[in-house]
């Protein structure tokens, strides 16, 4: 069975640009979460979506937005990119919405903002 997939693998953008990252969850998983991981730190929670609705949001500015599609795949959008947005962006899926249920992470998208 395929795991969580993310695209693209790597991305280089310029300050002020917009970026869209994509995630496909494990088949049957209805919950998708997004994380930002800066080098040397643990993943920071951005969003959780369950059944196409936002169920949780971390402490990130409104430049960050996301959505989940009927097939449970998801997109993370970041507007007006800043140098500080350079990070590994991780997507995780889980079977249920419950916060104590194990998550399966994708390989991540490495975003570099210059």
């Amino acid at each position: 069975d395929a795991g969580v997939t993310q695209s693209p693998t790597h991305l280089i953008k310029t300050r002020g640009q917009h970026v869209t990252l994509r995630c496909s969850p494990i088949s049957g998983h209805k919950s998708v979460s997004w994380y930002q991981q800066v080098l040397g730190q643990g993943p920071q929670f951005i969003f959780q979506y369950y059944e196409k609705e936002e169920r949780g949001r971390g402490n990130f500015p409104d430049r960050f937005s996301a959505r989940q599609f009927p097939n449970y795949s998801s997109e993370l959008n970041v507007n007006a990119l800043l140098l500080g947005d350079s990070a590994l962006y991780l997507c995780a899926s889980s079977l249920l919405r419950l916060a104590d249920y194990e998550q399966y992470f994708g390989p991540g998208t490495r975003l570099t903002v210059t």
Partner: protein
Amino acid sequence: LAKTTQPISMDSYEGQEVNITCSHNNIATNDYITWYQQFPSQGPRFIIQGYKTKVTNEVASLFIPADRKSSTLSLPRVSLSDTAVYYCLVGPQYIFGTGTRLKVLA
């Protein structure tokens, strides 16, 4: 939300048992304890989860004392490939700390 405290780093040798302790003094009654492993430039991987006493799977054991204010992840006979960052999470599985950087030496 329960805050966790882990050692920043640990070194071990191949074949040894490694124990990583996590402190979580204000754990809530309904909180589970979960550990993840992360290799460089990869997403975290679920290792084990428990609520009390001892949990064991094919990869690790998790020891939780009666007061549940701490937990210990035990990795038996580590190998070089166990070099990674290990995260202890308490409660919602979206709050990661800085983790413990384990380095296994030959």
